[in-house]
């Protein structure tokens, strides 16, 4: 049984400025973001992973670097984990841009994000950490639970929160969890996945 552990990057300069950006460089983690990543890596203590992958975007790479310190594996960049391509909305403060605005601005579609994240997941054959972004993670979770963008509106992935997916059975075990609960620790250590409370 393989589990994909998706982490959203920590708080970054783009987030505190309320800017949407798919630029590779320019928005590093803030101090708070680094602390969030360190806290998450502490949650991961004792767990074993076959690999750690990251979006090529700076805030994700920096987060992955901090997590990798605990895991002891060098992160590899995977393009499929990248931030939503923002199109004309790139580097604008359009945080509340609705779907229609995004389509008009040539931003990457929901379907495209779900597809590339699924492709990434299909290649997983051992417990893996992947550092990515809020919308792509949400698109993957929603796709697995068979919900579209409208139906999954209540899903918002927080900074360095933990979203675990059982790859084989396509079961979502957590959605933006703040910690590794005893149940998550058990399933990530090879125990059986029983329902949580």
């Amino acid at each position: 049984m393989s589990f994909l552990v998706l982490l959203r990057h920590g708080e970054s300069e783009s987030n505190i400025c309320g800017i949407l950006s798919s630029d590779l460089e320019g928005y590093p983690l803030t101090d708070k973001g680094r602390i969030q990543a360190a806290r998450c890596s502490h949650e991961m203590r004792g767990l074993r992973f076959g690999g750690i992958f990251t979006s090529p975007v700076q805030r994700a790479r920096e987060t992955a670097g901090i997590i990798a310190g605990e895991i002891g594996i060098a992160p590899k960049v995977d393009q499929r984990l990248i931030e939503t391509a923002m199109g004309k909305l790139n580097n604008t403060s359009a945080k509340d841009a609705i779907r229609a605005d995004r389509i008009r601005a040539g931003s990457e579609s929901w379907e495209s994000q779900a597809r590339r994240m699924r492709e990434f997941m299909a290649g997983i054959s051992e417990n893996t950490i992947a550092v990515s972004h809020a919308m792509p993670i949400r698109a993957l979770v929603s796709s697995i639970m068979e919900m579209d963008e409208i139906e999954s509106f209540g899903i918002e992935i927080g900074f360095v929160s933990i979203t675990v997916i059982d790859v084989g059975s396509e079961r979502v075990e957590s959605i933006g969890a703040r910690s590794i609960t005893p149940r998550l620790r058990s399933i990530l250590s090879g125990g059986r996945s029983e329902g949580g409370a």
Partner: protein
Amino acid sequence: MTRRLLFIRHGESESNRLGLISNCRDRYHLLEEGKEQINFISEHIHNFGLKVVYTSPYARARESAEIISSNLGIPIIADERLRETDYGQLNNTVMVGRVIDMDPEMARERGVESLESHRLRTDSFMSGCPDRSAIVTHGLVVRAAVSIITGIGQDEMGGIHIRPGSMTLLDADLKKVYSIGNFLVSGRMQKTFSLD
């Protein structure tokens, strides 16, 4: 079998506006904005064939349920199990952030109702709830319902946000989640209710 349960968190109310968490049942009413949210939902669910609206006994929930009941022409049934979280010593205090994000030890020390308690009463309610029911309740009860259906722990879904006036559509028999915390009705949600 199918058992379609449409959970609705009460509309924006005076306590939400004040950032207050409160166990006062009758003091905090729906704001105009909250009434609009629920009216909006009613318009879009009127052909779901909902037969009844269950509600928490709290004013903000009852008032939301009354709007649905009157718009859809269906009866209201109040149920204690759908009541607000017991906030213990934190009753009538201002809360920055969500109760679900509180440190569990601190919440326990302050006498805040446990997640297990939410699960028990929500499960009890859901097991007897018939098909085509609307259910007006509070955030942690909706989360408990999602947890029961999916097997994801209530403390493992911080990435789920149940806003005032939002819908969460579940099937308790098929163990399916059709929507979480949304405001617009999708074609598929519509279709779910036209199947028998």
